[in-house]
C-alpha cells in the first residue's frame, strides 16, 4: 500500500494522474508532460516533492561525519549554503546523490525517496565511532519545488525574505504566508526556483497561498513526468538511471563534486583516487538521435559492430523536439561529436555525443 504525501487531495482536485513511485502515490502528470514541461521553462510550475527523504545530522562531529560519508567538501560550505554531493561505498559505487544544507549547529541532508531506508541504514552504520546523532525527519517534512522564470516574483508576494538577495544554492529560514519554513534557491529543472520545506500540517494552506499568489503568473501543478524530462534536458543525474551502486561519481561526470584533495578520509576515496590516476574506462555522456527515434534505458550503444555502451536515460525532449539521452560509453568514444549507433528494436539508429546540458537557455541562477 503506497503512502500519500500531504498534497494527495490537492493533486486529485487538480486532475493529477496518480501512479505509485518510490512507495508513494504521486502525480505523473496533470495537463500532459509536454505542456507542463514547456510551462516550467516559460512561466512557473509547482512540484510536490514531499516524497524526498530528509535526515538531520547533529552532534560535535557532524561536520567530520558528513565529510567522511560524502564526496564533496562540506567544510567549504558557509552557514545557510547548500551543496550537491554524493555518498559512495568503499568500492566507489554511489549509495545516493543528495543535497547537504549547513546550519550553525547541524546538517540537513535531502536524499532520494527510493533510497531513504537504504541511506539511513548506511549512515547509521557509518556513524558508529562518531559523536553524532542521526534523525530521519522525512515524515515531518512537506516539500514543494516552485520552478520557472516567474518563481521569484511569485514567491516574493507571500514571502518575508528578500529573495533577490538569495543566491543559487543558498537557503534561509523565513515565512511564506505566515508559516515558518526553510526556503532554498535550488531545483532540478534548469530554471530559476525555490524549494520549500515545512510542517506538513500547513500543506493545504501553503498550496492554496502559492496558487492564489501564482494566478497572475499562471502557476500550474507539474507531475513527475515533466520533472524527469526537465532534469534530463539539463543532464542532471537520476539515481537508478544515470547513477547507482555500480557507477562511480567520476564515471558519472560528477568529478566536479568529488573533492579528492579535501582534508581527511572519505568513503570511496581510495578507489576514486586510483580511477583518477589510471583513467576511467567509461563515461556518462549526453547524446542525440537522428530522426524520429527515442532512446530508452538499457538500449545498447554500438560502434563499428561492437557494443560500446548502454543507455542510462532517454526521453523525447519537449524543448528540442527530438530524442535525447544519456549513456555510459567507452571513455575513448566520449568526446563531443563522436558518432555511434543505438539499437532500437533490432535497428541501428545513428547517434552522436553532444555537449550538455541539452537545454542551454535555462534561467537557473549560477553560483
Amino acid at each position, binding site marked *: 500500500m503506497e503512502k500519500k504525501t500531504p498534497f494527495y487531495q490537492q493533486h486529485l482536485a487538480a486532475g493529477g494522474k496518480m501512479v505509485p513511485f518510490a512507495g508513494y502515490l504521486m502525480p505523473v502528470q496533470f495537463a500532459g508532460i*509536454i505542456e507542463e514541461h514547456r510551462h516550467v521553462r516559460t512561466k512557473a510550475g509547482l512540484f510536490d516533492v514531499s516524497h524526498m527523504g530528509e535526515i538531520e545530522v547533529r552532534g560535535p562531529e557532524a561536520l567530520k561525519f558528513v565529510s567522511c560519508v560524502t564526496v564533496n567538501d562540506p567544510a567549504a560550505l558557509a552557514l545557510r549554503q547548500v551543496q550537491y554531493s554524493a555518498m559512495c561505498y568503499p568500492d566507489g559505487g554511489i549509495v545516493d546523490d543528495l543535497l547537504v544544507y549547513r546550519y550553525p549547529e547541524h546538517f540537513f541532508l535531502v536524499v532520494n525517496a527510493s533510497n531513504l531506508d537504504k541511506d539511513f541504514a548506511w549512515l547509521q552504520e557509518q556513524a558508529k565511532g562518531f559523536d553524532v546523532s542521526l534523525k530521519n525527519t522525512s515524515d515531518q517534512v512537506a516539500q514543494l519545488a516552485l520552478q520557472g522564470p516567474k518563481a521569484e516574483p511569485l514567491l516574493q508576494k507571500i514571502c518575508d525574505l528578500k529573495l533577490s538577495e538569495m543566491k543559487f544554492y543558498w537557503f534561509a529560514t523565513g515565512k511564506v504566508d505566515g508559516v515558518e519554513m526553510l526556503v532554498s534557491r535550488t531545483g532540478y529543472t534548469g530554471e530559476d526556483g525555490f524549494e520549500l520545506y515545512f510542517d506538513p500540517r500547513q500543506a493545504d494552506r501553503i498550496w492554496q497561498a502559492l496558487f492564489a499568489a501564482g494566478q497572475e503568473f499562471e502557476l500550474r501543478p507539474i507531475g513527475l513526468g515533466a520533472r524527469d524530462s526537465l532534469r534530463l534536458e539539463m543532464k542532471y543525474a537520476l539515481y537508478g538511471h544515470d547513477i547507482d551502486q555500480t557507477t562511480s561519481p567520476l564515471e558519472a561526470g560528477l568529478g566536479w563534486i568529488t573533492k579528492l584533495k579535501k582534508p581527511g578520509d572519505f568513503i570511496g576515496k581510495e578507489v576514486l583516487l586510483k580511477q583518477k590516476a589510471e583513467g576511467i574506462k567509461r563515461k556518462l555522456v549526453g547524446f542525440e538521435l537522428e530522426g524520429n527515434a*527515442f532512446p530508452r534505458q538499457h538500449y545498447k550503444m554500438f560502434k563499428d559492430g561492437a557494443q560500446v555502451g548502454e543507455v542510462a536515460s532517454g526521453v*523525447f525532449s519537449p524543448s528540442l523536439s527530438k530524442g535525447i539521452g544519456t549513456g555510459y560509453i567507452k571513455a575513448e568514444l566520449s568526446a563531443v561529436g563522436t558518432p555511434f549507433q543505438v539499437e532500437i528494436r533490432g535497428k541501428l539508429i545513428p547517434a552522436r555525443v553532444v555537449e550538455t546540458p541539452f537545454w542551454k537557455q535555462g534561467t537557473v541562477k549560477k553560483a
Partner: protein
Amino acid sequence: MSFPTDLKYSASHEWAKIEGDLATVGITDFAAGELGDIVFVELPAVGTKVSAGKPFGTVEAVKAVSDLNAPLSGEVAEINSNLEATPDLVNKDAYGQGWMLKIKLSDPAEAAKLMDAAAYDAMDKHGH
C-alpha cells in the same frame, strides 16, 4: 470513461471498426491516456501482412515506448499518414482522426474473439 459501442476491442487496448472485410484500427482513449503525450507512431507499409495478437508497430510517448498489436489478421490497406506530422491526434481523438491502419481482413470470423464495449469497459485494465 465510456467506449464507443460500434467498435470491437482487444485486451491490449486496440479498437477495430469492422465494415465488411475492412477494419479500421487504433488504440483506445484509455491506452492513449496511459501512455501520455504521443510523439511518434511507427506504422507498417501498405501491403504488409499483420496477424491477430502480433505487433504491427510501436508508439513512442515522452517517457515510454509501447508495442501496437493487430486486433485482426490481414493485409494493411491504408495507413493514417497524418500521424507522421501530428502523432498527438491519437491523444486528441483516439477513435476518429487518431486512427492508425485499415486492414483488409483475411479471416473476418476472428472478430468474434474481440470484446464489445461493455466487456472492454469491465476489463481490469491495470492488470494488463
